[in-house]
C-alpha cells in the first residue's frame, strides 16, 4: 500500500477530541494528503470547522503524532480556510456514529437562504431524537457544550440531547 493510502487509513483512527465518536475523516475536515515527488514531508490539508474551535490545534497535533507513530513521517499540516467547512461534509458513516453516540446529526444546509431573524430557524425540520427517533423535539438553546452543537429536548421520551448544528 502506498504512503498516501496508508496515511488516509491512519487518519481514520484520529478522533475529534470534542466529539470522540468521529474521526477527522468522518468529520470531513481532511481535504487532501499530498506526497512530494521526492518522498519528503507529507502534507496533510485540514479545514477548520469553526473560527474559534479550540480543538483545531489538538487535532493538528493528533494527526502528526498518528502519522509519525505509523512510520509515515515526516509530515506537516496545512490549514486551508476556503472553501469553508460545512456540516454537509460529515460522511454518512459519521452521521450514523453521531446518532449512536447520542448526538442528532445535522440536516442539510441552505447557505444562501434568507436569514430568519427570530426564534428557531424554521427552514429546517427539527432533528429526530437520537434515542427514541421521535421528531417531536424542541430547541432549548442554539449553543451547546462545544461550538458545533445546540441543545435540544425530546418531547416524546423527555430526554435532553445535543444536535450537531448545520452550518
Amino acid at each position, binding site marked *: 500500500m502506498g504512503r498516501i493510502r496508508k496515511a488516509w487509513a491512519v487518519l481514520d483512527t484520529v478522533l475529534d477530541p470534542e466529539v470522540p465518536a468521529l474521526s477527522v475523516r468522518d468529520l470531513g475536515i481532511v481535504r487532501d494528503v499530498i506526497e512530494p515527488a521526492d518522498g519528503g514531508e507529507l502534507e496533510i490539508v485540514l479545514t477548520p470547522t469553526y473560527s474559534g474551535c479550540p480543538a483545531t490545534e489538538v487535532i493538528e497535533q493528533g494527526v502528526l503524532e498518528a502519522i509519525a507513530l505509523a512510520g509515515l513521517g515526516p509530515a506537516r499540516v496545512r490549514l486551508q480556510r476556503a472553501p*469553508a467547512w*460545512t456540516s454537509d461534509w460529515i460522511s454518512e458513516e459519521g452521521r450514523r456514529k453521531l446518532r449512536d453516540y447520542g448526538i442528532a446529526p445535522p440536516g442539510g444546509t441552505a447557505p444562501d437562504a434568507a436569514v430568519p431573524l*427570530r*426564534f428557531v430557524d424554521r427552514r429546517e425540520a427539527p432533528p429526530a431524537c437520537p434515542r427514541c427517533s421521535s421528531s417531536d423535539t424542541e430547541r432549548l438553546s*442554539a449553543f451547546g457544550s462545544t461550538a458545533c452543537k445546540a441543545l435540544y429536548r425530546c418531547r416524546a421520551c423527555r430526554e435532553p440531547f445535543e444536535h450537531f448544528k448545520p*452550518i
Partner: protein
Amino acid sequence: MQPSIRVDPDPAVQYVLRIGDTCLILGQRLGEWCGHAPVLEEDIAMANMALDLVGQARALLTHAGQMSGQGYDEDQLAFLRDERDYRNLTLVELPRGDFAFTVVRNAMVAGFLRHLWAALQSSNDAELAAIAGKAIKEARYHQQHAADWIVRLGDGTDESRRRTEAALAAAWLYMPEFFDSDAVDDAAADMGLGPRWADLRAAWLADMTAILDEAGLAMPAEAAFRSTGKRGVHSEHMGYVLTEMQYLQRAYPGGVW
C-alpha cells in the same frame, strides 16, 4: 515591562484591523458573562459567541500582521499595542451592562458583521475572502440569537421592555460610527479589498427595522454625536479593557501556556 509596538498606518492594514479589533474587543466583553449570565444556556451561548469572535480576530490579526510586513503575529497585535492603535468600533468596548444591553449590542454588531462578511466574500484578497466565508456562518447564528432575545425582552414584561428601550437608546448613540466612511474605506473600496461601510447601512437598517417591529420597539432617532474608536480615539472604557487583556503579556513578556 514589555514595550508597545506601533502598526503601520497603511489603509489596507487599518481596514483589516478595524474588523479584527471589533471582533477581539466584543469577544473580550462577551467573555465577561462567563459564570454570570442569567441562566446556564445563556452563559454557554455568550462563551460560544466570544469564542467565535476571538477565533475570527485571530485570523484577521494574523492576516493584518502579514499585510503590514512588520512581522507582528496575532498575539503581539492583540496584546502589545497602545490604546490609540486599536481600531474597533466604540460600541464594542462599552461595559457589558445588563443582559438587555448585551443582546441589543450583539444584534447591532452581528448584523453589521454579517453584511460586512457577505461583501468580503468577494474581496480580491483571497485570505480575507476565506475568513469571511467561514465567519458569515457564525455571524448568522449570533444575529439570530440576539434578535430572538430582543423580541422576547421587548415584547415581554414591563421591566424587560423598560431595560431594552434603555439599552437601545444607549447603544444607538454609537451606531453612526459604523457607517461613517473615511479615507480608509475609500482606499479599501478602490483596491477591491472590501466595501465602504456606508454601503452596508441600508441592509443593516432593514434587519434592525424587522427586529424592532417584531419586538414592538421604536427605533431611536440618530444622534449628532460621533464616536471615533475605529480611528483610534476611544471612550474612557477602552483603557480598562486593555488593562485586563494585556496585563499578563506586559508583565511577563512572551509568556506562553
